[in-house]
């Protein structure tokens, strides 16, 4: 895949770009190995909604590193047909630098033009399209809840803030439901706003702008839709000597967050001296 400047920040490949390109690559894998997403929806009344994802950035990939990136994908059914999982490796001239693991929940579509559906196991017709070595009995378990609990229990909160948003059509997929990588965009916007507001008081927060992201964990509870209003509730923490941000994306109705994003940065805070 040819790179362009829009995929990068000065620090490296944009996490949102990894999500979008990775999901596109997973769709290609499905099409080549089993059934295309389009056929799944149109012919098998089967859709997918993202439940959890994790991105690991082993090495920053910068725009000037290479003309091209290679994406390798592995897909599998898990949990007796209750999950579809894909693993994506992004390889630049410097080797494998970024990995994404995304797990979707299949939906049985009701057959209406809004593509409404409810969680359901993949039907036998769909399961037959996968090879035996592409079917894993054990379900995937998201590390996000445990990670959040550990941060809140053992970390030190440094600052918190709120960034409101409205979901617009360019942030949605074909059914006017938000496209899940937008959670990454909104979370990073919440972090940047928190840094802008609080960094004069807490200078260490500026590391979140100057150092690359090391790991991103996502968990989705309920989607946002076109023109839904919400807010990113962001908090910065020192945890295990590193800077971590927790973002809860909440709707105006309150209650449980619709999505959770946890960003971990590479730089260690311990012993840093700031003027």
């Amino acid at each position, binding site marked *: 895949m040819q790179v362009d400047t829009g995929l990068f920040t000065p620090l490296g490949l944009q996490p949102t770009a990894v999500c979008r390109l990775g999901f596109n690559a997973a769709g290609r894998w499905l099409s080549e190995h089993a059934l295309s997403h389009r056929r799944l*929806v149109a012919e098998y009344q089967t*859709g997918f909604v993202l439940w959890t994802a994790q991105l690991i950035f082993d090495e920053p990939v910068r725009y000037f590193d290479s003309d091209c990136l290679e994406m390798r994908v592995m897909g599998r059914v898990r949990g007796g047909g209750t999950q579809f999982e894909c693993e994506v490796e992004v390889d630049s001239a410097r080797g494998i630098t970024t990995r994404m693991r995304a797990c979707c929940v299949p939906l049985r579509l*009701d057959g209406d033009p*809004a593509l*409404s559906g*409810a969680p359901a196991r993949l039907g036998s017709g769909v399961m037959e399209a996968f090879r035996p070595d592409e079917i894993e009995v054990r379900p995937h378990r998201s590390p996000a809840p445990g990670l959040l609990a550990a941060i809140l229990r053992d970390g030190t909160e440094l600052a918190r803030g709120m960034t409101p948003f409205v979901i617009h059509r360019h942030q949605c997929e074909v059914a006017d*439901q938000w496209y899940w990588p937008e959670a990454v965009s909104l979370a990073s916007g919440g972090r940047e706003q928190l840094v802008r507001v609080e960094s004069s008081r807490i200078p260490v927060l500026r590391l979140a702008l100057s150092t690359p992201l090391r790991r991103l964990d996502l968990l989705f509870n309920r989607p946002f839709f*076109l*023109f839904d209003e919400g807010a990113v509730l962001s908090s910065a923490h020192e945890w295990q000597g590193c800077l971590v941000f927790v973002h809860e994306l909440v709707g105006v109705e309150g209650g449980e967050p619709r999505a959770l994003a946890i960003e971990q940065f590479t730089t260690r805070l311990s012993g840093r001296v700031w003027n």
Partner: protein
Amino acid sequence: MMVRVSGALLRFTDYRPVITVAAPTVGAALTKLADEHLALKPVLFDREGRVRATHQIFLNGEQLNREQLTRPAGDADSVDLLLAVSGG
């Protein structure tokens, strides 16, 4: 009563988020709404004329199941129509 439509259903009501409907019950209001917005009909109702289970209906903030759509509702009441999740 006011029927509020949001999100993925907006394109089926010509992007009108709030529509006033005069009807004696919640179910009757949904039927009238679908009659007035034909694109909404196959989205909201299945072939047997029942409200699809993939939609959530709220009367003044209280979620109703399909058996409760006979609840009476008047001018001061508000019905929210939500699609829980889409498989796009």
